[in-house]
């Protein structure tokens, strides 16, 4: 059965504009610093079913990350596109995906010395605004600020902020914030995440 909600054309145009906006972001945000998690050999997984995931991936791609389109099953993406890069040719893997994809990838990555350096949930299933819950060893303040100001283009802002975020903490930090609810139909619940392998 074909998924029913292909992205609306107006949404795509709006998200395209968001991508352009992210590209024009200040240099301090646009350029990953030397300690940025996504500054090295990074790959981003794009789930073509969801415009939010595509925008997130596009922003990172334009900053130098390699992009992989999610296959019909996330296991296929792992075995065909990710696992062959290990060990050595992949330092970071990230995405804005459904929760089950992260769940599966974490388990398939067991035994490859992977660690999840960051995971955030983005939830606006019910009325009353969006709730973002962020956790990780990266500096989360910039990520939170980007989400706070992101509005309808939050996924692009999130991608740019994660690219710029430094690996700042030995222990996991946690942060929860409520923002205005983005527009658009869809799952209204995503997970952004960064998995990391030692160089």
């Amino acid at each position, binding site marked *: 059965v074909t998924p029913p909600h292909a992205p609306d054309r107006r949404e795509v145009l709006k998200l395209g504009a968001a991508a352009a906006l992210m590209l024009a972001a200040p240099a301090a945000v646009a350029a990953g610093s030397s300690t940025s998690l996504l500054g090295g050999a990074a790959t981003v997984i794009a789930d073509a079913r969801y415009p939010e995931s595509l925008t997130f991936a596009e922003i990172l791609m334009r900053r130098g990350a390699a992009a992989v389109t999610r296959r019909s099953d996330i296991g296929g993406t792992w075995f065909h596109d990710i696992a062959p890069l290990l060990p050595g040719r992949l330092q970071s893997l990230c995405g804005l995906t459904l*929760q089950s994809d992260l769940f599966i990838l974490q388990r398939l990555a067991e035994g490859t010395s992977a660690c999840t350096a960051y995971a955030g949930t983005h939830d606006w299933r019910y009325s009353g605004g969006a709730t973002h819950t962020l956790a990780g060893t990266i500096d989360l303040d910039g990520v939170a600020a980007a989400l706070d100001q992101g509005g309808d283009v939050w996924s692009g802002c999130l991608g740019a902020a994660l690219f710029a975020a430094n690996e700042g903490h030995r222990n996991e930090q946690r942060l929860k914030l409520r923002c205005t609810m983005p527009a658009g139909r869809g799952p209204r619940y995503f997970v952004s995440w960064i998995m990391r392998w030692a160089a």
Partner: protein
Amino acid sequence: LPLPPGLSSPDFDSVCKALRGVVGDDWLVTEEAKLAGYDDPYSPGVTADYDPSGAVLPASVEEIRAILAIANRHALPLWTVSLGRNYAYGGAAPCLKGSMILDLKRMTKIEVDPELAYAIVEPGVTYLDLYKFIQDKKYGLWIDCTDPGWGSVLGNTLEHGIGYTPYGDHAGQQCGMEVVLASGELLRTGLGAMDGNVAWPVYKYAFGPTLDGLFMQSNYGVVTKIGVWLMPAPEFFSVVEMMVPHEEDIAALIDTLRPLRLDGTVPTATIANWMRIAAGNTTRAEWYNGKGPLPPNEVDNLMHEMGIGHWGLRFGLYGPERVVAQQRDVVENAFSHIENVEIGVSSYRRGEAIPPEHATLAGVPSVDLMPLNWLGGAGAHIECPLVVPMQGAAFLELYRRRTALFNAEGFDHYCGLTSTTPRCFINTGSIIFDRNDAEQCARARRLGRTLIEDAHKRRLAGYRAHISEMDLVAAQFDFNDHAAMRLYRTLKDTLDPNGILSPGKQGIWPKALREAKNKGGETP
């Protein structure tokens, strides 16, 4: 971390030292962070009740035997897992808190006989591994796999798991077994009991009692090897898919299917309700943003927008092209009598690429868990799938009753029917919930228990259950005052007198723990 029942901290340290001497430092896990991987990832809020004390990972039969000797000496409970991917039923987590996980994932040998079409696999072999092995060797064979295919072939077979090809009854396709008993003794079942018998993996029985079933869904031994029959790649393969619009159409669908399953025209079949189809492709938030189950008008809207019926039926037809064509005619003729049925057929010749949506019907494993996203949040599900006779009216009544029970706890009713044997269905009813939401976890647990109890009132039972419900389901098998359980216990006490193997598995507890319970102790 919990200690094994009855062991002090120094005792446990001493056991761990001995185990390290067998497997090496790297293969005994006692660090809390690493042990988290053995927690039940779909636990409905009861993770801490089933924490293990550690995990030991042998690489060979000899190491298993040495571990069992240590466990017997110290009364160390071991919980055996092949890979621990028995998700929805507890994953790798033990029934008895503080058990040491006996993790067999390092045992990954595969042998395939392409002529007689069978494989012999160790516990650590996944469906993905076996598929790849056969593809790499270019054998003209298909496997049958679960969905998702990342689990152990041996583990799933022992749990009576199912797939979607004519070889979908996994226990039915098992032939030959190697087992280490609790005493450390190694045995082979069937013709394997004769050293070097070449017919071991091709004939299921032997001279004397058939033992294999004793080691499935049990705690009588550690299975280290099984034979699995494989399906010759068919010359031609058609996927028949059909939909019927109304809830009550299930009766006609089942009653039309039954004779075709009984006479072998249809070799296996799967039926899904609207929610199973919707959850496989979308999330609930795409349809509705209220709480509680989808109202009927929203379900109608969903079915209309997705272009689906209340029920979908799907099966494969396999064989020479002319034979499949005739089977297709028979099938289409039979089902076309159902009002408003829509039938579609896709066909593939041997070697042709099979698209992802038909992969499991061709034994091509994949790993995806889209239905977990139905509610959003940290998706999980628990199950107690019933075995139901293939009779339309009775199932419709059961379905309506179970829908009411799901809805009463605020859940949509996810319903699937899989027929791997011709007279019945395995009726899955996944309770999908957000494991990070304590209130949802509580409702999921309550619904799980209600479904199990309601089934028992109708004299139906689950064929598997979550670790937290194994005692409840086991107690429902009550013929002649639980005569079967008395025999299971007799076998347990005879084969495993120290009670070291998987205590509590399928409700079978060793004598010492049963006595502790009778005296009012907390365990089990």
